[in-house]
């Protein structure tokens, strides 16, 4: 099966097929942008692969956050979306005139709310302050619109992903 791997800048087509499962590694034939390579992969731990390719040895750490893969090797960090070629590719467009639910990007304490329901805000305007790990982080409006559903109170603890407020465009 082929995958589209996209880091925000480069789009690569990668097709890998398992040739052999051995006691300490697996051999794959990988076709990347039309070029075929034989790759030995040893999965040291869930997040840690040892890859041998043309004699080069790479310790590669792969972490998945949702559908994004964050890959670290030799000090470089890459962030990819990996899409099955057969999937319908829909580009997420910014919603015009829609409804945007803003959620907490990290767990924390709501120390200040600077807007009220019904306020008109500009994109980038501060809406509330979330304190996490002794640092105060201002959560700003991702788009211009009207604040409609502030769902938390000052002093509340929120978890990552909890709804904070809604902006209607």
């Amino acid at each position, binding site marked *: 099966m082929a995958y589209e*791997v996209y880091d925000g800048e480069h789009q690569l087509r990668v097709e890998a097929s398992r040739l052999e499962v051995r006691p300490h590694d697996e051999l794959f034939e990988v076709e990347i942008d039309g070029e075929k390579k034989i790759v030995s992969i040893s999965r040291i731990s869930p997040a*840690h692969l040892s890859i041998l390719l043309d004699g080069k040895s790479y310790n590669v750490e*792969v972490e998945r956050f949702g559908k994004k893969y964050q*890959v670290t090797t030799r000090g470089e960090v890459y962030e990819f979306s990996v899409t099955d070629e057969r999937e319908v590719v829909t580009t997420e467009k910014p919603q015009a005139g829609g409804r945007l639910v803003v959620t907490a990007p990290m767990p924390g304490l709501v120390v200040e709310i600077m807007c009220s329901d019904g306020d008109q805000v500009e994109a980038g305007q501060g809406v509330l302050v979330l304190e996490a790990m*002794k640092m105060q982080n*201002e959560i700003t409006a991702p788009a211009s619109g009207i604040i409609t559903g502030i769902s938390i109170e000052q002093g509340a603890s929120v978890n990552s992903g909890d709804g904070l407020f809604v902006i209607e465009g």
Partner: protein
Amino acid sequence: MKDISKILIANRGEIAVRIARACHETGITSVAVFSEADRSAKHVRYADEAYEIGPAPSVESYLVIDRIIETALKAGCQAIHPGYGFLAENPALPAACVAMGLIFIGPDADSMLLLGNKTEARKVMEKAGIPIITGAMEPLKSESEVLAAASETGYPVLLKAAAGGGGKGVRVVHSEDELLSAFRRAEAEALSAFGNPDIFLEKYLIDPRHVEMQILADNYGNVIHLNERECSVQRRYQKLIEESPCCMLDSAMRGRMGEAAIAAVKASGYTNAGTVEFLVDSSGNFFFLEVNTRLQVEHPVTEMITGIDLVKEQIRIASGEKLRFNQEDIGINGAAIECRISAEDPETFLPSVGYIRELVEPSGPGVRIESGISADYDIPVYYDPLLSKVITWGRDRQEAIARMLRALDEYKIKGVKTTIPFHRKILVDKGFVEGNYNTGIVARIEHHRTDNFLEIAAIAATIVAMNDEKVDFVSDMKQDDRWKLSGRMYGGIRSI
């Protein structure tokens, strides 16, 4: 000589483990305290004894002096070590210790109080003949005082909280029309952070170097310095990388700064371990900044080049021993660097909390780790994002840097974002490598990425994705949604 055979460590994280290690090595029983969020934290497991002192927020646990004193007494401790942060610079703790017959491992309340007040400290230093930055000698009580002081000093000026520290209540002002509003904001911030709105003003030095002297002072008037630390790699007045020795100091300048530091300590009646911070301008003039009346985060670089265990010396001094060293005994062996590893995005410095799924620590020649984390550890959201420190030693600075790069490559902390990629960028920066840098370095570092390993990374992502397709995604749905949202939010958060 007072007996210290049991110490309560009034802290958490890597510094609590560091102090417990010194106790272990000297046969002292270590007592940890912990909040409800920290039951399984490393410092609790490391100590010989451990007692819960309250709910997760530090104002209800690590900052409650009464609970800490009570626990120390109940456990039969003779002494309390405050570490850094939390209560380490609060004179109420040494005062409470004295009242209850406990030894505080640090200076007495009076000198801590004196040095904690920035304008008072400036006056003491000026009197002792130590160079201070031009500016106001008293808190500025009115707008007219501020305007007068600023035009006398000359722009740019820096407004600072008299009771302050850690960058709170600080404003750079470049011209008179910014001055009064900046003054009002600084006052408000100082009041909220320190309960004291006093603001004073200094000449703002553009991109100075931050160089500090480590000192040790016993209770008998003996004071020595243990060389300098260069701490110019800072962001928002928070140090990120420190090293010793500083490449710009020759032994003559080191001697002058050391003498100034010793004079500063003697003038304030300070004892135990402390640090005198200086700013150094591009002409090599140095100016008193402040005294940190405690162990510093970056104390290991000094330990690496002097071979002296500062925590053990702190305990010896507190028990009433005389200093074991004269100034002539203190040499410089090689070079050492420290990188502070935080749970933060390496580009935006936004906090990254989460669960440490995998942990591989570097080792080998010249590498030391001071860590407060372990594998399978859920980082609490309530405390400082500092996870650990990597310290490397080399025969020379070049070797220390090479070892740091190797150590950072070996270090794997999976589950949260860390500042490791940021440190790598600094360490290969031409100015840093040549030793030619100042506090402006972080602002000019670029976060570009090479595409050298793009293909191998893409292959790895594909292989893992193929494998992931076999597992059930249901449990990940929420995380997936969260990702999309935080993706949309990108650029919508700023640390303030």
